[in-house]
């Protein structure tokens, strides 16, 4: 059996578990996402429409794309032996072409239940000025040192019912 890269035993409250950087996000990056998911809403690629019709400062970075940045942040922070179980987030402000996106995950709680480690993370995306555009929490599952691997597919158990995402800040 291989040794897990990250165990719940390695994690401490207040630890910055991971960061992620995307950008500078250009209209081309936004258009690539819109094309990949076939979202043809013009606020994401049609500058005259976005700024003239919808009075936006520039074409808008898709909220749906930012969701994936948060998920990637947590997935990579937990490593290959962990599992992103839950995530919640709210949008605080829009991001537009020309913005840079930085994500960060910080440990706010941890516990061990039924042989598995559960780590609660505060997650946020900020722009190049440090303004938070998206914020929330996630719960990741990690093995304990010497304990069983995190099952895949992940299985809900009644023992986990008390493990809940924190209320919004």
């Amino acid at each position, binding site marked *: 059996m291989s040794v897990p890269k990250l165990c719940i035993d390695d994690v401490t409250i207040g630890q910055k578990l991971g960061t992620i950087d*995307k950008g500078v996000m250009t209209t081309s*990056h936004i258009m*690539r*996402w819109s*094309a*990949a*998911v*076939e*979202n*043809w*809403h*013009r*606020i994401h690629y*049609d500058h005259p*429409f976005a700024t003239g*019709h919808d009075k936006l400062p520039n074409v808008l970075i898709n*909220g*749906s*794309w930012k*969701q*994936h*940045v948060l*998920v*990637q942040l947590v*997935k*990579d922070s937990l490593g*290959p032996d962990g*599992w*992103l*179980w*839950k*995530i*919640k*987030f*709210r*949008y605080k402000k829009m991001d537009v072409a020309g913005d840079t996106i930085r994500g960060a995950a910080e440990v706010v709680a941890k516990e061990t239940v039924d042989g598995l480690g559960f780590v609660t993370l505060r997650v946020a995306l900020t722009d190049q000025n440090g303004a938070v555009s998206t914020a*929330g929490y996630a719960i990741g599952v990690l093995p304990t040192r010497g304990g069983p*691997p995190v099952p*895949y*597919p*992940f*299985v*809900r158990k009644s023992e986990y019912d008390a493990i809940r*995402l924190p209320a*919004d800040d």
Partner: protein
Amino acid sequence: MDPPQVTEADIAKYRGMVGAPLVAPTLLEPDTLRRFVHAIMDGDALYHDVAKAKSSKFGALAAPPLYPVHAFRRAPDGADPLEMLHADPDADGSGGSDGMFFGLPPIETAFKRLLNGGNEIEFYRNLAVGERCVARARYANVNLKQGKSGTMLLVDVETEFRTEAGELLLINRQTLIWR
């Protein structure tokens, strides 16, 4: 302009409503996965290296965890959402496809402004290449609320995404706010 008058009677029919299962028009194909991970800029080898993916816990190339919410694109014989631009140059291009209702009838309301009130998502399994996604949504909560700026309509759409074999992939709870 007077605020729209929306009553409990207008919204009660939606509460608890369950949509018909929505079946993705295509299986997850390797090229779709390639374009998707390029777009989210995730270079994880498990999304493109078949040998690594096979020896991983996924056992095959699999999509990023949240991919299933984007699996419901236009069918080969589906209506062209860009046709509307010929009739209305000011149309937004979305064709009414908002990726929120997943087979539920959209809420009909006099409120004009729709905001995303946030998401809460649980993940259980990733959709693998060659698998097809099925979504089933329900209106979990539909309530009017008095806010500082007047009445709001709060709607929670809870959508389960499964494989065709019924294996649970994820549950997405999205809060929508109309004002």
